[in-house]
């Protein structure tokens, strides 16, 4: 197998950002860049196969990452159905969460509403951080409104996952009136929460599949974890649905048959592991970014 020339490597690096494009268009990009090399060589009276000349041209062309991302942005469809469906799912999940507040207010205790409002500012900062880590690498493929909806979705996830702990902590430091019992009110009411799992599952799944499709290096591991998280959310949804619906339909005698219990706990385990892995990968990625040497091409203005 022959070794790649510097320019071939450069073109491959550009193409790594264009995996969402049809093969025909990728081929056009390759052909055009190749032609640019030959034109430049002809103009400079140089050999286009000379590695030194190719390095010089690459320096004139600018960062392959920036060129790839700019080309991806230039070809980004104005409406792309996975974003649309994912965004709608995320929006519904967010609305579903906030719908829990008035439901809590109407049926049980208005302090649930107050507790939720208390948790909002506390959770906003980590939500912003997670959003930055998870969605930033996908920015060239996503429009601003999908990012905002992603923010809302991530925020809802944080609320659902950490909310009881925040309130428990507040009780520990002296805000006893908030109370663990009331804090767990929402999470105990699965009939309020379980549709949220399905919608979050769809969102995670779509983000994961999108990451696989675009092959953005920073998110390739995250994509698999995101897919796992999506599947686990959906299986959680299914377990709870079965737990609620089967007894109601009188298909089974007991309210929670063992298979549903097992499914629930396995889903919960996958959910927890995938979330921990996502957080770990995000941390590693952030560490890599902070230690990455800044190259001349990355810092140079590209016209």
């Amino acid at each position, binding site marked *: 197998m022959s070794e790649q020339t510097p320019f071939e490597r450069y073109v491959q690096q550009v193409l790594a950002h264009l995996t969402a494009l049809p093969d025909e268009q990728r081929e*056009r*990009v390759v*052909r*055009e*860049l190749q*032609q*640019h090399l*030959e*034109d*430049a060589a002809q*103009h400079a009276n140089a050999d286009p196969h000379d590695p030194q000349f190719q390095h010089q*041209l690459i320096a*004139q*062309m*600018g*960062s*392959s990452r*920036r*060129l790839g991302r*700019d*080309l991806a*942005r*230039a*070809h980004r469809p104005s409406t792309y159905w996975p974003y649309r469906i994912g965004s709608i799912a995320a929006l519904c999940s967010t609305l579903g969460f906030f719908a829990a507040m008035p439901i809590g207010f109407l049926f049980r205790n208005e302090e649930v509403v107050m507790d939720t409002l208390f948790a909002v500012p506390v959770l906003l900062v980590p939500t912003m951080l997670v959003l930055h880590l998870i969605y930033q690498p996908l920015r060239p493929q996503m429009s601003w409104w999908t990012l905002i909806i992603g923010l809302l979705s991530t925020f809802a996830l944080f609320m659902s996952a950490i909310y009881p702990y925040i309130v428990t902590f507040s009780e520990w430091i002296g805000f006893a009136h908030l109370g663990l019992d009331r804090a767990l009110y929402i999470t105990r009411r699965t009939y309020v929460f379980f549709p949220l799992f399905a919608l979050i599952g769809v969102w995670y799944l779509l983000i994961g599949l999108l990451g696989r499709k675009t092959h953005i290096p920073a998110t390739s591991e995250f994509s698999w974890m995101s897919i796992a998280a999506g599947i686990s959310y959906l299986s959680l949804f299914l377990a709870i649905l079965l737990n609620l619906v089967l007894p109601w339909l009188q298909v089974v005698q007991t309210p929670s048959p063992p298979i549903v219990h097992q499914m629930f706990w396995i889903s919960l385990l996958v959910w927890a592991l995938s979330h921990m892995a996502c957080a770990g990968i995000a941390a590693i990625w952030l560490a890599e970014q902070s230690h990455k040497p800044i190259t001349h091409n990355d810092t*140079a*203005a*590209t*016209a």
Partner: protein
Amino acid sequence: MHMAEYRELLKGSLDLLILTLLKSEPMYGYQMVKEIHARSAGALKMKEGSLYPALHRLERAGLIDSAWQRRTDGVDRRYYRLTARGLEAVEERHATWARFVAAIEGVLRHERTDTI
């Protein structure tokens, strides 16, 4: 030579430069890079890669279109040319640019008068 400052200014005006070049004749990528360099007497030297995203974006916007053509030297090149919409756009952008330059120039002239 204030190359870095020129690059910053060039970022916002690359579309206008491309459309203007194509108003005179169809061109291919490398030809445009050299033409911009030559017409600006070497002042505007761009990162050559940045031309292609701009070309693809303008093509998707319907302002230009492209086709592979064989030149007399037997080599195929992707030539870009202005569409009817592109021709309208270049006229509008020229007018906008002229107003912008006049406005900036007005401010600068005022500043120069004040400092004399």
